[in-house]
């Protein structure tokens, strides 16, 4: 019996069915009734009037344009890779230059004047007040 229903179900969907199976299905009164009910179900199911709100096409077109614009702004991968490599090379060069620069900064400035310092003689301070 199940086979009869399944055959008729496929038949109304326009799918290929075996002639023998169709003949056997149509010979059965319950299966014939099911065929009518399947067709009624189809009419009910296809009596579909639901529609999206107006403006959906415009919204899709607008969003698609925006996304295309953003995609154009996106940096291409090779360019991004080149920027990273340049940054690394730049960083290495700064590191190489920096110690020399630092050494120069740590040197004392050249003398601008010379102060003479004469230490007092050892006996001068002893017994001076006596």
């Amino acid at each position, binding site marked *: 019996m199940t086979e009869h229903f399944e055959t008729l179900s496929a038949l109304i969907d326009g*799918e290929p069915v075996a002639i023998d199976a169709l003949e056997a299905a149509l010979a059965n009164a319950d299966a014939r009734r*099911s065929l009518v009910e399947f067709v009624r179900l189809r009419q009910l199911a296809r009596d579909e009037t639901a529609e*999206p709100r107006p403006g*959906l096409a415009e919204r*899709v077109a607008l*969003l698609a344009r925006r996304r295309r614009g953003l995609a154009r702004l996106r940096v291409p991968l090779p360019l991004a890779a080149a920027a990273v490599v340049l940054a690394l090379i730049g960083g290495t060069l700064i590191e190489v230059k920096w110690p020399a620069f630092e050494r120069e900064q740590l040197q004392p400035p050249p003398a601008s004047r010379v102060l003479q310092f004469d230490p007092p003689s050892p006996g001068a301070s002893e017994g001076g007040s006596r």
Partner: protein
Amino acid sequence: MFERHHLAIYRYLLRMIGSRERAEELTQDVFLRAIKAANAYEERSSERAWLFRIARNLRLDDARHARRTPSLLPVDHAEPSAPAQQALRLSLLQALAMLPDDEREAFVLAEVVGLSYAEAAESCATTTAAIRSRVYRARMQLRATLDMPTAGKPLT
């Protein structure tokens, strides 16, 4: 592409999620992702199946994040049909919400959207035999749940 497929995608998402706002947001995301991934689209697969695969992935991601369950599927505001038909349709939507996720999905893809079993299988990353079986199980479940007007009428 948007014009050709947005209604079907929206209706699939609506019937799977149950929220109009979220279905709209996800429909928008489906097409944004499709535009972004246009290069990944392979000609050997159907454009429709490809879009539904994107929609399905987004829906599953959304469900994982929001832990959303379709408690009640919304009924359309502008129902052109008669009150009896309207009541039956409401019952269908409610019964649909009660189905297991994979059966509801197969039914929505085949019946509401009109995808072939092959396209539905491609969208759901499964086989056509699995889709055939899921659609059949969904139909039987819906038939049992709904009070179909033909029930009990002799068909000789």
